[in-house]
């Protein structure tokens, strides 16, 4: 379950025959460009193929024409005017191609737009568990990072390829009219180079594979030295002795492995490329020399012209073969894009919108992460009713965050049931349900968007929206008059593409995320350690505001600081994936169990303001 997306893609992979897959993927890539802009694709192909075809004219036909003129002593003016006309034609082509450069620069963003609007449209249907599978990242994220540039590259190379093939065929036809035997000298190297080209490809692939690990090591070491976050430690410790050693070993190994593979590669490349120069070059000369000297050839000039024609067409042929390899490799990316965009994802059957959330109940829920060996949650039961404030507390790694993800329906449970207003969570419209939550996660994200949009999560439509965002930020204890906010609420929260952007500290990022909840006014607020980076005053005020503003609604929060937990109506104490204690603060304190122990540990240093007898009780606890 939950992996519908991945299994769907397997099916489509099998249905795609391997043989014609390259053309299919290429066609798919070109289709993206075509759909983005009707003129860009034909224009690209024209620009990149016309030049080669013109070359056939100049290097093969024209050369032959001139040589014939000289041999037959035809008037110079004819040759001259012929040249003028040909060159004017060429200039015209230049003009078209020149403007293509401008056109491409303007239209490239359209290809981006086309592809990613579709990605954005379908991102809704992708499950969270799909996102988290490493396969998803390897296959799709990488494909999506590069696909727009790649689609353009592919259309350019397709144009070049078409030009290469066209030019080869045209020059072959011309060669054929002079002497069909000459073709032999081109077909043989073609076959030879295809064969060794494949071998070479395999060898290169094997080399890449053999050095992957060492390369990753070397890249990692590089990163350590150039990322700012490592800078202080590098200066304070002798990290050089660990890292540079690793790098040296990796690099030496990489050089050694590469050399072995590359020497093999050199041999294949020699056979591949040498076969052209040897067969199409030298061997053809032997034949021509033989014909000219021994056979009664009437027009020597044509034969001489054919020698340069063959050099030209082998060059084209060589490029065609290289381009084919490029097209093949590059279009592989589009199989992943195809799968991503075109796989029929099981449309969620329209499920009832649950409306306002009144109760959430977990019955005996257990959960194991896909691929994990042990259960993260075991037999957890839990009930929340509208207006209640629940706290989840516990040790590091007790499964608190997982519990929250489950009750929001982000993962399907492994066993047990989750009921929302009495209905099973699988039977309701999940997206509509989740929209009713306001959540702050531990690993929260702020976006490189203006601050106001980071709070509202939409574009503000007027002054009221700015006021709403400002108030939410103030409630979250965010200092809106911070000097870093150069453009006030319109400051972009990131320096990624704006030098005047604002880089929030950990605490400020948390406050922004909390402000989102204040601005949204959801049915249910979920806070996963929202205050870990806040200072005590900010934390205190934030909690106070949160409790005040969400009166009558629900709050579920995770906290390590039990002083905050006691603001809750009910506290769930978790340990090793189980709920070990629950009840109100007073009840749990009376129980003298885990909660009591934790609370007293934290309270130790505040004891001054505690009554005498409790002080003594605490002392007893520590002995």
């Amino acid at each position, binding site marked *: 379950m939950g992996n519908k997306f991945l299994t769907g893609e397997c099916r489509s992979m099998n249905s795609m025959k391997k043989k014609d897959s390259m053309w299919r993927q290429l066609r798919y890539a070109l289709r993206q460009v075509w759909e983005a802009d009707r003129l860009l694709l034909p224009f690209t192909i024209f620009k990149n193929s016309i030049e080669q075809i013109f070359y056939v004219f*100049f290097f093969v036909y024209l*050369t032959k024409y*001139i040589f014939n*003129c000289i041999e037959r002593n035809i008037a*110079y003016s004819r040759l*001259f005017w012929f*040249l003028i006309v040909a060159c004017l034609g060429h200039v015209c082509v*230049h003009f078209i191609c020149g403007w293509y*450069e401008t056109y*491409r620069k303007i239209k*490239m*963003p359209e290809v*981006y*737009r086309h592809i990613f*609007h579709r990605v*954005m449209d379908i*991102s809704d249907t992708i499950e*969270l568990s799909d996102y988290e599978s490493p396969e998803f*990242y390897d296959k799709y994220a990488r494909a*999506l990072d590069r696909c727009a540039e790649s689609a353009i590259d592919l259309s350019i190379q397709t144009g070049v390829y078409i030009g290469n093939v066209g030019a080869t065929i045209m020059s072959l036809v011309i060669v054929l009219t002079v002497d069909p035997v000459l073709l032999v000298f081109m077909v043989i190297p073609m076959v030879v180079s295809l064969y060794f080209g494949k071998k070479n490809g395999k060898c290169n692939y094997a080399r890449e594979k053999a050095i992957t*690990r060492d390369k990753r090591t070397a890249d990692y*070491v590089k990163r350590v*030295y150039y990322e700012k976050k*490592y*800078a202080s430690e590098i200066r304070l410790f002798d990290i050089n002795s*660990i890292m540079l050693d690793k790098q*040296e070993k990796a*690099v030496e190994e*990489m*050089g050694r492995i590469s050399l072995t593979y590359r*020497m093999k590669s050199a041999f294949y490349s020699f056979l591949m490329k040498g076969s052209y120069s*040897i067969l199409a070059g030298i061997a053809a000369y032997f034949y021509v*020399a033989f014909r000219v*000297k021994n056979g009664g050839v009437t027009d020597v000039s044509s034969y001489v012209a054919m020698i340069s024609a063959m050099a030209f067409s082998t060059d084209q042929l060589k490029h065609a073969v290289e381009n084919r390899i490029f097209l093949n490799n590059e279009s592989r990316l589009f199989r992943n894009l195809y799968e991503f965009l075109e796989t029929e994802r099981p449309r969620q059957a329209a499920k009832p919108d649950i409306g306002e959330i009144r109760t959430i109940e977990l019955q005996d829920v257990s959960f194991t992460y896909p691929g994990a060996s042990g259960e993260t949650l075991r037999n957890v039961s839990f009930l929340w009713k509208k207006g209640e404030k629940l706290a989840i507390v516990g*040790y*590091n*790694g007790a499964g608190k965050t997982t519990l929250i993800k489950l009750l929001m329906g982000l993962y399907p449970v492994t066993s047990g049931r989750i009921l929302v207003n009495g209905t099973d969570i699988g039977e309701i419209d999940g997206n509509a349900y*989740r929209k009713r939550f306001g959540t702050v996660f531990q690993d929260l*994200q702020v*976006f*490189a968007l203006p601050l106001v949009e980071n709070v509202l999560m939409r574009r503000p439509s007027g002054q009221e929206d700015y006021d709403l965002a400002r108030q939410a930020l103030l409630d979250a204890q965010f200092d809106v008059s911070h000097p870093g906010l150069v453009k006030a609420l319109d400051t972009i929260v990131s320096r990624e593409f704006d030098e005047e952007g604002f880089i929030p*500290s950990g*605490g*400020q990022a948390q406050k922004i995320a909390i402000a*989102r909840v204040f601005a949204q006014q959801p049915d249910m607020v979920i806070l996963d350690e929202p205050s*870990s980076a*806040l*200072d*005590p005053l900010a934390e*205190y005020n934030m909690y106070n505001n949160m409790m005040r503003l969400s009166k009558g609604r629900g709050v579920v929060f995770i906290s*390590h*600081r*039990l*002083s905050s937990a006691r603001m809750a109506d009910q506290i769930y104490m978790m340990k090793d994936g189980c709920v070990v204690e629950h009840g109100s603060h007073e009840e749990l*304190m009376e129980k003298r169990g885990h909660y009591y*122990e934790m*609370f007293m*540990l*934290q309270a130790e240093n505040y004891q001054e303001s*505690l009554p005498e007898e409790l002080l003594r009780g605490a002392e007893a606890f520590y002995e």
Partner: protein
Amino acid sequence: MSNTASRRKDKLKEERITIRQMIGNVTYLLKYAGKYDRPLILRIMILNILLLSGMAANDTFILKMIINGLTGDMSFYRIMVLLLISLVLVVILEWMRQMLNEWAQAKLIPLSGRIQRDLAEKNSLKDLIFYDDPESYDTYAVVSQRADELIADAVTVVSKIIGGTVALLVASAMILTIDPVLALFPIAGFLVNLATRFKIEKINYTWWVEYRKKLRKADYSKRVFYQPEFAKECKLTDVRGPLRLQFDEALDEAAEEGRIYGPPLTWVSLVNWISVFTIFSFFAIPAYLGYLALVLKSIALGEVASANNAANYVRRNLNEINYCLVDFQVIGRYGDKLIKLLEYEPNIEVADGLTPAKETGALVLSHVSFRYPHTEEDTLSDISIEIRPGEKIAIVGENGAGKTTFVKLLMRLYDVTGGSISYAGHDIREYNTRQYRKKISAVFQDYNIYAATIAENVLLRKVEDGDEAEIVRALEKADFGRKLRSLPEGIRTPLTREFDESGVNLSGGEGQKIAISRVFLHNDDRAVSILDEPSSALDPVSEYKLNKNLIENAGENTVIFISHRLSTTRMADRIYLFEHGRIIEEGTHDELMKRNGRYREMFDRQAHNYLV
């Protein structure tokens, strides 16, 4: 429109590096590479030149003899001899070309590795302040990351350009033997090409920089839709709306750059194409050859054919040199920045001087202030603190009050911009930086876990025999013992999956414990321990154990705690409350509580909820 035009001009001016500078930069890079492995560099360059000139000789001179033989009355036998010579030459040269190509690529890997290592070491000696200047950091981090490739590329490109030029000379010499005027066309073409090509690349580069800048925004906006770390927020909120709008706007801006830079580029390209290709090679050469053969009748068919061949050969070579020139420009441009980087003189990190005495000294800050480069305000101002040996000091305050900067000043990661810090009676700037830092150990809020074994992560240096017991002891004290026992390889367990599939990824709390254990290592030199928010990711039980252990461990050492949890600061001998980079209150816990000021207010707020 005029506005955008002037903007364009400004941009072009900014990026202007003269050709001479570029050549100078590339030469510098070659010399730099030569310092590491001169024989390799020389071998690659000489072989390339030999190879390309050999090929040029075959493609022009020998070819000319063959063609003349075919059209003239040379005997079949002599033509065969020529062809055989050519065959042998082609086989050898092709073989050499492939070998050289692959061999050089493999040999350059360890060389690049060595260069990268040296740069890394050099980089680690740069003053930390370097990183706080966003401009130098952005540019130079990128540049030095690419330095190894860059230097390898410089070797390849330069040898190709020299080889290509030699080949051109060979071909031109051949053309000269037929008719000197004929040689003018390729030369004219070459010159026009050189002039316009640089211009074209300059415009293209400027466009590309601007385009990428705009596209970065679009790239970011779309990445959010499929990157796992954003998935939760995307599913739970409507953030996709504004992101999509931002994406569209960024693309419109990117297209605008094309409208600005496209037209000038097109015009210069047209000049280049029409003159270099159409006029100087397609038109002029055949027309002139035809004129010689048909009107003047000074040359025969064989010479026309070989001249034509040679001209084509020249054109092909020009094309290749073109590509190399583009690379050359890129390298020249990057090289400029790299050279600046290589010549950066660090100040703090290499500072030599006194070695602090063995026993713990007093740390005295008097009127210290500090301002980050390119900022308007002091991050710290007028801080005066005296810390006697063995004292336990707490620094408390809100986020952004300057606590972490304070720590960095104490460790001399930055130098103060006003006032002074002294240790054991000497200004810390009088000490040898390395020796001074040995006296202090620190755990930072933003600690890192490295792709290395647990033991190496604790020591942050090479593990030697006999270190094991000490590491385990330190980890136990940092409350990592339970986790350590669950790992079959113990302290030899590799951390992170960066490049080791069997690596272990630690949770935030576990990672923090590893970082904390660094303070528990036995260390004779240490006199001062600094703990910057050491327990932020820990649960209360771990936090409690940690605090107890830290105090016990410190013994006679000076300890400086940075925290915003006041419960951990009560055990301090003295507490300093920072606000907006200044000390606003100081004293013992009791004194501060009595004072009824800001500290009291904070403490009460926190304590309030711990009343049972």
